[in-house]
């Protein structure tokens, strides 16, 4: 008999019919859970970011940070409506639409603001995701499990900040294949992606790429620790968050 796929399928069918009659036995569970947190990881009860927009407010400077983030996470470069972005910038009226007034300081009104996922304390994207591909970690980071995303885009509809991008095409087509970060995966077509607060770096004791590259204009730390750097700047400076009326409680604060 020829050993073809067709014969195999036939035989498998016969065997399956046989097995359907046989009693079922569950697979024995492994039982042992041999894992722990990396020794070098840094921890927080709730990670948060404070961005000093008196220091960081030009498209040029923000683009530099975006380039660093996008290179580190193999974020594709796609022009137009299907753009994929983890870190980007926008104008005051687009960033803080509810916090405008007709006579505000021109200098502030003319700044551009760095934008990223706010890692909300009360994230609507997590609430609406039917597969739990978007989930909130105990340390507050709103993470994406790309293995489980089915591309329904509910989370994009749920996010009031446009922080998520959908991969309409193969994201690898938008990458410079000669200049990838081989330590971080790419994404596949048909999933949603966004800033991950650099969880892969926190796991080895490093701060986020953008924070490191910002030369002191971005602070990162534990919101629940009164002695942390972020709490110190929040205590000393006036800050606002995006779209407070959405009730999402962003973990990204802006010094104005």
């Amino acid at each position, binding site marked *: 008999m020829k050993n073809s796929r067709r014969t195999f399928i036939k*035989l498998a069918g016969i065997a399956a019919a046989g097995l359907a009659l046989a009693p079922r036995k569950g697979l024995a569970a492994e039982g042992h859970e041999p894992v722990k*947190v990396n020794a070098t990881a840094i921890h927080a009860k709730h990670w948060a970011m404070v961005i000093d927009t008196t220091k960081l407010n030009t498209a040029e400077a923000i683009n530099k940070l975006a380039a660093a983030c996008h290179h580190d996470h193999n974020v594709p470069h796609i022009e137009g409506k299907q753009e994929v972005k983890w870190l980007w910038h926008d104008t005051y009226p687009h960033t803080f639409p509810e916090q405008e007034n007709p006579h505000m300081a021109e200098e502030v009104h003319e700044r551009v603001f760095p934008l990223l996922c706010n890692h909300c304390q009360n994230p609507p994207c997590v609430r609406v995701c039917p597969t739990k591909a978007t989930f909130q970690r105990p340390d507050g980071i709103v993470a994406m499990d790309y293995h489980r995303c089915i591309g329904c885009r509910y989370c994009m509809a749920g996010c009031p900040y446009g922080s998520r991008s959908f991969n309409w095409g193969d994201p690898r087509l938008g990458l410079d294949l000669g200049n990838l970060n081989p330590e971080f995966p790419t994404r596949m077509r048909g999933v949603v992606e966004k800033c991950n607060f650099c969880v892969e770096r926190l796991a080895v004791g490093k701060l986020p790429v953008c924070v490191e590259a910002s030369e002191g204009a971005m602070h990162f730390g534990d919101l629940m620790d009164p002695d942390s750097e972020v709490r110190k700047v929040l205590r000393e400076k006036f800050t606002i968050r995006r779209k407070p009326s959405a009730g999402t409680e962003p973990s990204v604060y802006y010094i104005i």
Partner: protein
Amino acid sequence: MYNGFAIVAGLVIFFAMLTAPFALGTMTKQYKEPELKLPKNEKECIESTEYMRTNHMQLLNEWRDWALRDGKRTYINHKGKEFTISLQNTCLKCHTSKADFCDKCHNDAGVSPYCWDCHIQPEGLK
């Protein structure tokens, strides 16, 4: 015995169906294990060869949940040795060729796992 003939006949047919693939399989071409290119600098994988051969798919499945969802990225193997949980940065640092290692068995078994839709093979993307 009521319906003795029917029961015995039924049992015979049942076992014939159940064992048909094995019986017929031995008459056809013998399966030969593909020759893999093993890492040059390492003698042992994170677990024994036998364990990896049968369990690597379950292990990788657990690894992704431990690392991504539980935030636990250090694996302690059955001998107590520790490894960083990462397909990209642990597995592929030793197995430097997808074509000469992964693909060999996957092709023979007719499976094409979608790991490579995202993870970058050691040969790099083309």
